[in-house]
């Protein structure tokens, strides 16, 4: 991992209009992504976790400019992605690829595997026909399939194999950044582990940088160097994965971690659980102030309902949290001291 930031996201916003009435006038907005900032270093994996509707997938799509942003900046390797003209954008797309969640919906059922994987090569006119074919075979072998699979159609494959085809397609143009949008959540556990190991190996082999979007905290912990936790369109905490899972500071992160069941009966029986009450509010009508305050046990009307707390550094510089009363830990970082506001 280098110290150079490959991707810098600053104050990214994406609002979807709500239209109603026969005139389809805009009557409101869904604040899907609302002021998200983070950076990813070259060769690093940043995990983006959160519950459904928190805006993690939208963030991934806006970064790739698959959706236009409402505001904010995305800089990839010094190049402003949002402002890039068409020709520059096409060049950028070679460096920024994506693997989608649903391996059944993300592959064209009418195309053969060789055409799915080789499409990017063809569009970007890389190599001759024969070279492209050879490259497709190599890619299939890289992801654990064989050259024989090239002539088949997606329906002939199982879910895990399809996801491998999706990965081969993403790798075809030799990208530097891959946005993995829930790449393993549709897969059974035994296949999920194969996929995670494959992504790990590919990262080492091709020096890839991942933005790994998922809702499964165990998977994210396993694969990520750093993790950002999103809630209602905002990043509430970001830290190295080692630090975040041992010393979470945001009350939402703590609740999220304690809610994940651990496949170990002894551990499960002895665990203290923080069960959050209520549901996630609608992103069309987010709460005032800190977006988490209606469900938070540390909430105080002032300042929590006033303004969203900024994301600030705590502890060592790499740990950032957006909370007025973050959990503090003793100097040795073992037993948590009483949270300032509890």
């Amino acid at each position, binding site marked *: 991992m280098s110290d150079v930031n490959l991707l810098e996201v600053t104050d990214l916003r994406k609002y979807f209009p709500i239209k109603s009435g026969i005139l389809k006038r805009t009557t409101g907005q869904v604040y899907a992504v609302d002021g998200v900032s983070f950076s990813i270093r070259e060769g690093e994996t940043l995990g983006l976790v959160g519950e459904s509707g928190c805006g993690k997938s939208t963030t991934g799509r806006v970064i790739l400019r698959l959706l236009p942003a409402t505001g904010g900046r995305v800089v990839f390797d010094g190049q402003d992605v949002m402002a890039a003209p068409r020709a520059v954008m096409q060049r950028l797309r070679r460096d920024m690829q994506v693997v989608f969640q649903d391996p059944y919906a993300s592959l064209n059922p009418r195309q053969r595997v060789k055409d799915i994987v080789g499409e990017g090569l063809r569009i970007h006119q890389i190599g001759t026909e024969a070279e492209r074919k050879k490259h497709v075979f190599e890619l299939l072998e890289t992801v654990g399939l064989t050259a024989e699979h090239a002539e088949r159609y997606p329906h002939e494959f199982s879910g895990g194999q399809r996801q491998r085809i999706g990965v081969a397609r993403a790798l075809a143009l030799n990208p530097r950044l891959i946005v993995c949008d829930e790449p393993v959540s549709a897969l059974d556990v035994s296949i999920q582990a194969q996929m995670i190991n494959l992504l790990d190996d590919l990262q080492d082999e091709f020096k890839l940088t991942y933005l790994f979007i998922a809702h499964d905290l165990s998977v994210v912990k396993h694969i990520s160097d750093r993790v950002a936790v999103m809630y209602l369109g905002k990043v509430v905490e970001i830290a190295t994965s080692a630090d975040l899972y041992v010393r979470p500071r945001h009350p939402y992160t703590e609740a999220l971690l304690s*809610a994940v*069941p651990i496949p170990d009966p002894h551990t499960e029986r002895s665990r203290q659980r923080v069960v959050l009450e209520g549901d996630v509010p609608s992103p069309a009508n987010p709460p005032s102030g800190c977006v988490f305050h209606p469900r938070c046990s540390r909430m105080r009307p002032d300042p929590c309902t006033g303004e969203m707390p900024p994301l600030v550094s705590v502890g060592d510089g790499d740990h950032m949290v957006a909370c007025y009363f973050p959990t503090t830990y003793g100097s040795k970082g073992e037993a948590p001291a009483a949270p300032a506001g509890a």
Partner: protein
Amino acid sequence: MAERVLEVSDLSTHFFTHAGVVKAVNGVSFTLDRGESLGIVGESGSGKTVAALSLMRLIPDPPGKIVAGDIKLKGRDLLAMSEDEMREVRGNDIAMIFQDPMTSLNPVFKIGTQIAEAVTLHQGKSRWEAWKMAAELLEKVGIPDAASRVKQYPFEYSGGMRQRAMIAMAISCNPDILIADEPTTALDVTIQAQIIDVVREMQAQYDSAVILITHDLGVVAQLADKVMVMYGGRTMEYGPVDEVYYDAHQPYTWGLLSSLPRLDAVEKERLTPIKGQPPNLLLLPEGCPFVGRCAYEREQCREKFPDLEIVGPEHGVHCWIPRDERVALRAKLPKFRSGAA
């Protein structure tokens, strides 16, 4: 000893399709005592849902058919019951919660009406009494402001609340057995934690037996007393949760436990996946369904499915590898090396 409410022996449910016979459940046996909870774990296509639907006699026929076996519900032969008797059993003795609460609630009826329906049908209460009871049940499962929420339609409920409403409906007739088929799979983790709490509370309050069907070994560790591991329609291993998690005897159970990333892992260790792809259910081998993916398979595995071998108190396993050899093999796996067993 607690009353035995359910005894399933050698249950086989097959589907006769144009492409061939799918042996979705193949010789499965288990028992359930009052107040006990059993987790059935397995990956997609392992037969866990079909096993549960067989208990309710809800297998669509054709193409499905319970071809063999015996289901005893508090001593009564469930498979010999008439359709009318079965209708009494469903809801009253056995109730079910489904994975997706949106498709299992009727969108055009109020939540209260749907809960009250079961109550009027099975308990002979008046509409007014049943409606009042619906509100009480909703309150019990933790729906805030239940008195007015009972008049709302499913679309006005969030995913977690719909699942609570499903639970309210399921417990309305105080069933002996509550079957929960992936009750939290469609929900976010924080909502999942709430629902697990509700299921646990309701189980304690009504002293029901629970069958929890899931692919999530974490949820089973949290909620179940005993666990049955299924693969390709077969029971691979069956026993008390602690026995199966810490003293697993089946290579498939080892594989499942080893392929999970752990939230409480201190250091990043490479996952040990199960090789290969899930089996084609139309072409299941004669012998053990795990053949081809098992790292330790031998000649007889392909020929015949092994008989049940008892390895501990109420702990059984189907595997051809001799016991001593199994224990030695397991000791080499990173997951079991730390001496948890």
